């Protein structure tokens, strides 16, 4: 069987159906606005965005794997590179970069210079604790969980709070390969 070559993020982005960027940004903004009205507490909204992202991530990962033809990643470094270069490109149209690897190779930062979710957005004083793009951290966590990696994803830098870029810290907690309920003895 001929080896299947993984497709680049640009190629897939060009081939999938795209939606108007402003429509996407405004819809997301409306969701966050509504969550703030309904839940009132900024922490609750952060949690809800993360949960929504998780639910998206668990389904998104199959689409990502189907369209990009990536094979199993050898280690977490490759996983992070694939998420930043192919994943973000395919779904958001932006390329992210990976940096700040720790000594074991289990923790890294994904940096986004450009983020379509936050166009036109400003955080008012009443919402200073809000992680506006928390849905992205949920998506990454959900997606990696479906491929047997438990991770913790947090925001390190957030442009809406005055930093110069968006930085997500992705930390691999553990790999949980499929367990089969077969006992080896007896």
């Amino acid at each position, binding site marked *: *069987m001929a080896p299947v070559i993984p497709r680049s993020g640009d190629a897939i982005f060009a081939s999938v159906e795209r939606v108007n960027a402003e429509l996407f940004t405004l819809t997301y903004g409306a969701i966050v606005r509504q969550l703030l009205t309904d839940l009132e507490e900024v922490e609750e909204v952060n949690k809800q965005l993360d949960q929504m992202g998780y639910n998206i991530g*668990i*389904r998104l*990962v199959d689409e990502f794997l*189907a369209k990009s033809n990536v094979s*199993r990643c050898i280690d977490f470094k490759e996983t992070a590179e694939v998420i930043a270069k192919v994943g973000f490109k395919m779904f958001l149209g932006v390329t992210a970069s990976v940096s700040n690897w720790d000594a074991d190779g289990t923790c890294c930062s994904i940096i986004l210079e450009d983020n379509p979710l936050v166009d036109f957005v400003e955080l008012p004083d009443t919402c200073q604790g809000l992680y506006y793009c928390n849905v992205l951290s949920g998506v990454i966590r959900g997606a990696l969980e479906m*491929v047997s990696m438990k991770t913790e994803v947090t925001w390190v830098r957030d442009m809406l709070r005055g930093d110069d870029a968006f930085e997500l810290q992705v930390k691999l907690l553990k790999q949980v390969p499929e367990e089969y309920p*077969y006992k080896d003895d007896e």
Partner: protein
Amino acid sequence: MAAIYSLYIINKSGGLIFYKDYGSAGRMDTNDSLRVASLWHSMHAISQQLSPVVGCSGIELLEADTFDLHCFQSLTGTKFFVVCEPGTQQMEGLLKAIYELYTDYVLKNPFYEMEMPIRKPS
């Protein structure tokens, strides 16, 4: 012309979520198809343990006298397998295409619960 007899999709715990037969040969009722699906899931798992090669990801092709069974497992654990006439070509391509359709139509359906049987609108 080489033909497909049936298509199965099983979730990561081995439960059958989709079954369709495309010919009168080997048609099965619901209970039998559920049993056959879990049987395949177990065989697939056992084959990974039996393999003399490290890093085996399971059975991809089973050739028998009267049929071939091609199986594709996604990295998320969902298995797609098709039972077809011996010698049918390009089943891997077909399985990949079915995987893409699964991601586009099943997973994007907001009313579809993960790991549950796929319901076709009647």
